[in-house]
């Protein structure tokens, strides 16, 4: 068997929710443990490294703010991929993945906004400005909330999945806007200093804790996402079984 078809088979094996549940049970303890280790290392580095010569202690806010902001965008990208999976390949777990990711993404976007505000007040002298970066991230937060509301409003996943997937894909236009807002417009927010074509311009003293925290947050995201997907599968099973029970009870009543 060629490598390619093996990879496709592995991917479609995952389409079986029971297999996914078994895989999730095996994977989750490792992911959670690894995330915890990286959090210990990251937090230790965050508080033992030097402060900035201009920003002082407040530079430590960066180690939470930047990973949260990265995740807010990565989570939406995961949802956009899942939306493609729903619309193009009709992968049965794609909608589960997208639905499970929305509340997690909303939480990380909330964190990015709040910690940004708490960093902005001492450094910029203001909690909030309506510049392009801050506004586009705020729009992302509203989109997460909107998607969560939509997913709740339509009970039947079979009907909500397509509407939700189209909305996620339309909203994806916001992600490059967030990323490049600091270059396209004149913003109070600084431009990128880590993810740059010419390499990071940030001092290694700040880069290491930042990388450790970014890995920790990413591992945390995948742990929570897989666990939330498992919950969503179980929720759908409960709904299906209740419907089955109601139907068989109805049949029993008619035959009497």
């Amino acid at each position, binding site marked *: 068997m060629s490598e390619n078809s093996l990879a496709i088979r592995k991917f479609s094996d995952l389409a079986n929710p*029971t297999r996914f549940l078994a895989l999730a049970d095996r994977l989750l303890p490792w992911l959670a443990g690894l995330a915890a280790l990286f959090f210990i290392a990251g937090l230790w580095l965050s508080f033992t490294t030097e402060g900035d010569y201009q920003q002082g202690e407040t530079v430590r806010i960066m180690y*939470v703010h930047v990973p*949260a902001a990265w995740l807010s965008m990565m989570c939406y990208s995961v949802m956009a991929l899942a939306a493609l999976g729903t619309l193009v390949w009709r992968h049965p777990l794609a909608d589960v993945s997208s639905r499970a990711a929305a509340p997690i993404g909303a939480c990380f976007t909330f964190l990015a906004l*709040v910690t940004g505000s708490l960093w902005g007040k001492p450094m910029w002298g203001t909690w909030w400005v309506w510049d392009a970066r801050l506004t586009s991230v705020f729009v992302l937060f509203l989109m997460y909330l909107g998607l969560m509301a939509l997913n709740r409003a339509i009970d039947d996943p079979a009907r909500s999945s397509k509407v939700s997937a189209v909305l996620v894909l339309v909203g994806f236009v916001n992600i490059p806007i967030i990323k490049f807002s600091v270059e396209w417009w004149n913003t109070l927010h600084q431009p990128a200093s880590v993810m740059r074509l010419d390499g990071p311009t940030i001092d290694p003293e700040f880069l290491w804790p930042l990388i450790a925290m970014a890995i920790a947050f990413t591992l945390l995201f995948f742990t929570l996402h897989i*666990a939330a997907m498992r*919950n969503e599968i179980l929720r759908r099973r*409960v709904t*299906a*079984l209740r419907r089955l029970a109601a139907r*068989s009870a109805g049949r029993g009543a008619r035959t009497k």
Partner: protein
Amino acid sequence: MMSHAAYVFTSYGIATLTVLGLIAWVVLDGRARRRELAELEASGIRRRSAEAASGETR
């Protein structure tokens, strides 16, 4: 006017609360769903695949 350290600790405090809240929600949601499934199963309602696996017939 708060000191710089206060801004740092407030940030980490809110981050900790949010992350712990998220973890608690995922864990409790999972437990509640498992309990519901167990209750349904106890009342004799099972998924067809689970019935086939245990060899039961109706």
